[in-house]
């Protein structure tokens, strides 16, 4: 056990945990933040995607020690940011959600993309989501959702400027 200190969804968090415990287990079992899912445990499905310092990471391939001193955002905290909230709304409204198990990871990947590229083409969206597997949707409406979120985002920024 060692103590790690990190920012979790905007809150300073102190945790006594084995530094080699997987982040996905810390989140789901220790902190009861079960929004992040595990679909493979080997980094292939993307269901456990989280943001570390705003960058896309896989919680099944990270250990707790790597969080120390960093900023972690999970799907539970995603709605706190205007971008994350817009992505979540777009996913719900565009019909991007079916079983919903890949959805949190998909949204995290979408936020990662839109924070780097606020006006992506559909091909750019496809590439950005290619590390996240979905078995229900065929991706069409997920891509629609990301493009919709980008449109809403750009429209609100236009309105502000």
């Amino acid at each position, binding site marked *: 056990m060692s103590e790690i200190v990190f920012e979790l969804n905007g809150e300073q968090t102190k945790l006594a945990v084995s530094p080699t415990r997987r982040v996905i287990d810390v989140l789901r079992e220790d902190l009861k933040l079960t929004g*992040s899912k595990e679909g493979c445990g080997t980094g292939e499905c993307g269901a456990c995607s989280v943001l570390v310092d705003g960058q896309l990471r896989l919680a099944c391939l990270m250990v707790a020690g790597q969080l120390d001193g960093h900023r972690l955002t999970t799907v539970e905290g995603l709605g706190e940011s205007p971008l994350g909230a817009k992505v979540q709304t777009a996913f719900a409204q565009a*019909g991007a959600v079916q079983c919903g*198990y890949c959805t949190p990871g998909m949204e995290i990947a979408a936020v990662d993309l839109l924070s780097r590229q606020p006006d992506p083409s559909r091909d750019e969206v496809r590439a950005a989501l290619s590390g996240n597997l979905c078995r*229900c949707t065929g991706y069409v409406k997920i891509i629609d959702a990301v493009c919709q979120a980008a449109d809403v985002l750009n429209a609100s920024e236009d309105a502000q400027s």
Partner: protein
Amino acid sequence: MTKTTNDVNALAVGANETRADAKAKAQGREPYAADYYPDGVLWAGAVRPGARQGVAHARLLAIDTAAAAALPGVVKILTAADVPGTNRQGIVHKDMPVLVGDKLRYAGDPVALVIAESREALRQAIGLVVVSLEPLPAVCDPVAAMAEGAVRVHDERADNLLAAAEIRLGEGAQGLDHCDVVVAGSFSTPVQAHGFIETENGVACCAPDGSLTMTISTQAPFRDRMEIAHALGLSFDQIRIVAPCLGGGFGGKDGATVQCLLALAALHSDGRPVKMVWGREENLLAGYRRHSCRVDYRLGANRDGTLEAVHCRLVYDTGAYAHLGGEVMALGMEHAGGPYRIPHVLIEGQCVYTNNPVAGAMRAFGVCQVTFAFEAMIAELARELGIDPLALRRQNALLPGDTNCAGVVVGESTGIADCLDLIAGHPLWLERAAWKDAAPPGTQRGVGLAAVFNAAGYGAKVRDSAIAKVELTGDGQFVVHNAVSDMGQGNAAAFVQIAGHVLQQDAARVSVRQPDTATAYPSGSSSAGRTTFTFGNALIVACEQLKARLINRAGLLLFVDDDSTLTLVPGKIVHQASAREVSLARLAGFLRDEERSCLGEYVAPLCPDPGTGKGFFIGFPHVVFAYGAHLARIEVDLSTGQIRVVDYLAVTDGGQVINPAMYDQQVHGGVAQGLGYALMEDLATRDGQVLAGDFSRYLIPGALDLPEITSVACPGEESRGPFGMKGIGEVAMNGPLPAVANALADGCAIHLRDAPLTPERVLLALESLAEESSQ
């Protein structure tokens, strides 16, 4: 009436309402079975020595648990001797042990169950259980398994044939004798994994009084109760199953996965909760999968293109245990003549035990195998006859009142001809020649079609019924007590929409409670394209009853004696003439608890026996079918053999549409899973050992692998369905493999008979074609 800010709109069937579950899922709040981590939870896991020792068939000699039991954190290790009941599970045939006591019949058979304090202790302990096996010769090829003297998978059976049946119409195979043209082909289809992202899992707890409460990722909570009771010698009322939303199912969670093992673990956990989660490797080894199939066809027609006769032979490999193997075969046979009129039919089917992993239910079970072959035969026939492939299909397409290949007279809702007409008028079809001509250098383009159909419902001899419950809560909200799991297809949201429509309530006033055997009523499994059809019909009955009752009781409060003058609107009942009203919250307080709920029952129609089948047990034939016509435009890289599907159009006859977005979701998903089946998915085994243990070796399509998929709903109505709908969850799965294979034949003149259509196979076929033409 002008809309004011206070107005709310009632949910409406046919409208694009946002799925009721979408927001919670998008915010990561929807609880799945895997998300339950009760305090003090123990972990359970199975010991599956066959995979570890590379053996698919073996006598179990001894299990040495001493080293594992001595490991700190290990609570208990159970073997077959600890199973209290019959130790047998299975939906139709009870042939699958919970824990194997005598012999392993496939590499994933479990021989022991370990319960531990932590996942880490569990993992280590499983590795420390020493299992002595005496390897037996394994039979892993279904044709070899049918040979005289073949090794028997089940010692107590005379042979490995699980089921054999035939369908005969007209003159049967002799009809081919007087055809002008006969085409023939032999095909094989791969094993496909469901690939749901939430693997098989659950959590269970046994109370001091012996009652079990289990939260399971399951498509059939009520049947699970029966399976567990039978296998472990318990009574039904001891077992409560809660079935939250599933992280995907596709048939793979229909039937016992973790259920009996987990219940057994709970019985030995001294009242502590116990959790079991299969990893991806265990899912690919011990989870169910799609049957591989060998298919032989002969199809005959007259010179003018009229289909005359078909003869086909199907061999399905069910693996070590039956699951629904016989029913999978039956459904495939029922669809083996395609959605066409063919007067002379002989369809022979066999379903065979082998020492391969267990095949079971998967979206469009049995059907997508035969559709690949049949639609390739139709395309070949069109080439032989020099008839346009769309015109040939249209000419022979089933029309209402026609007899299908199983001898069933199809009803008014038979829209295959309309689906084909919509393809015929679509730009993707009309502009195909120019598109093909514009193929970039080094590529070849092709356009392929498939006409598909898929039965809905359980089929003959299985009661397909549902009991829906709708409740007005004490504070004036409505709750639908769903009894058929939502594995992602959106049936629960459809139920909210149906209830809101009948009860004239808005989205905020209607919610759904997911299945719980303690509060809902047996309504069958979430499967077979019957979920919304059957439960939806029952729900309409329940909602109409409740609506009538509420209006009647409101009349008492409002001093109105004519119920027809009262209207149920969002949140209240109003008497328009006098402008008097009572809120539902107030009305709820006026009712006794039992008055606030209504049950509705429904039994789906059964097909009268057409007298065409022989050897079927249950599930043949059906009476409601969804139809579809699919078009794939592909580009083949001639140097790599890689197929890129550029455009995909799926026209679907699903009767009336309850929710257009959800309709498209089902079609997109079926096409996506079908394109995976067409292009890359092959859960191969060697000597009964699964070669893939993860998603890097079992590939399913990612966002870069799939095209934009266009879904078009063909107008129609199935009068027996709720609001005229019929289930479309499965039909779209059937199109992609034949459509892509036919596009490949169209573009490159190669005719692949073995799926999936991998780059290697395409390249080899291109090379042999080049050799042939240079000779």
